[in-house]
């Protein structure tokens, strides 16, 4: 083996697995660089940095928020679920009323009948005589149908209460308990000759 090869093999032999313990300060510097000491943060900065600084806590907060939203929506859904629909057709004679107004009144238990009606809702009657009241609570109701003013049917028919009454005291009370109701109303005809 020549000189050069001797030197090479000497260095290789000594340094291939050469180890030496470094001073502790090296690790301290590395640690401080990759984990810099935290400066006091504002509340807003802490919130914004939460996903990075405390991912587990952030995930917990997100889970609680999601559960709260789901619970809220569930409560809203079931609370609003106890509502019903009253729908039907208004007739002028044998033909559907062509446009008018349907008014829903709630019947409260008061001494005088006129005091016992409380206005709930007003909806249009369409050209097919159809009307619908939505989100109706439990209770007792009456419906009053009014034809469009000065229409042909208005000239021939009175505005009327369900099922076919001019006087609300005689109207049949609609009881809403646990299901929707279909109620048709027939307008009372005006007499041709008032004296008849």
């Amino acid at each position: 083996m020549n000189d050069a090869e001797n030197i090479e093999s000497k260095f290789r032999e000594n340094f291939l697995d050469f180890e030496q313990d470094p001073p502790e300060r090296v690790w301290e510097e590395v640690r401080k660089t990759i984990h810099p000491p935290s400066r006091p943060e504002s509340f807003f900065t802490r919130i914004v940095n939460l996903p990075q600084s405390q991912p587990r806590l952030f995930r917990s907060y997100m889970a609680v928020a999601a559960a709260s939203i789901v619970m809220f929506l569930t409560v809203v859904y079931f609370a609003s679920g106890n509502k019903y629909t009253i729908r039907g057709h208004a007739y002028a004679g044998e033909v559907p009323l062509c446009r008018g107004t349907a008014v829903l009144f709630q019947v409260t238990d008061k001494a005088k009948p006129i005091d016992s009606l409380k206005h709930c809702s007003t909806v249009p009657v369409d050209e097919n005589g159809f009307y619908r009241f939505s989100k109706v609570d439990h209770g007792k109701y009456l419906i009053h149908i009014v034809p469009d003013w000065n229409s042909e049917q208005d000239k021939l028919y009175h505005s009327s209460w369900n099922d076919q009454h001019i006087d609300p005291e005689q109207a049949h009370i609609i009881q809403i308990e646990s299901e929707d109701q279909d109620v048709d109303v027939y307008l009372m005809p005006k007499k041709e000759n008032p004296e008849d």
Partner: protein
Amino acid sequence: MDAEKELILHCLKQDIAAQNQFYRKFASKMFGLCLRYAGNTMEAEDILQEGFLRVFRNLQHFRFEGSLEGWVRRIMVNAAINYHKKNLKYIGEVELNDNLPATISEDALSKLSKEDLLRVIHSLPVGYRTVFNLYVIEGYSHREIGTLLGVSESTSKTQFMRAKIAIKEILKKTEV
């Protein structure tokens, strides 16, 4: 391999204890490497620190193909080269001195301790020292060294020859 993988995963989660364990696993060997490339102990510490910062910053890129130690070692060598980049870019073609020093006796060579050899390495110019380490200890070819240092293959060969001559001169002086 599973223990290493778990250690890496914990390091990636910024677990300080895991990072400390990772550091201690490789620190001694890497410091030994840094001492070979540096001109003195302070430089070696700086290279080691920079090397480990690069390791932790790039740990997510480790693909578990090949040894982790080999990967760390490559990063550390690059850190050492980068540390001396300013000086290394000036190495160029140098004409060989025909007046080569006399040979070193095998007996004299065998008496040299690790510390003696380290002192010899430290006294080399940075270009010679880097090429010598890359070729003799790391086992890179001159072509690979040229790519690493941004020089030609022939420049690497020349630097290596000059390194050996310089080492012989130093050893000859100490032998006397």
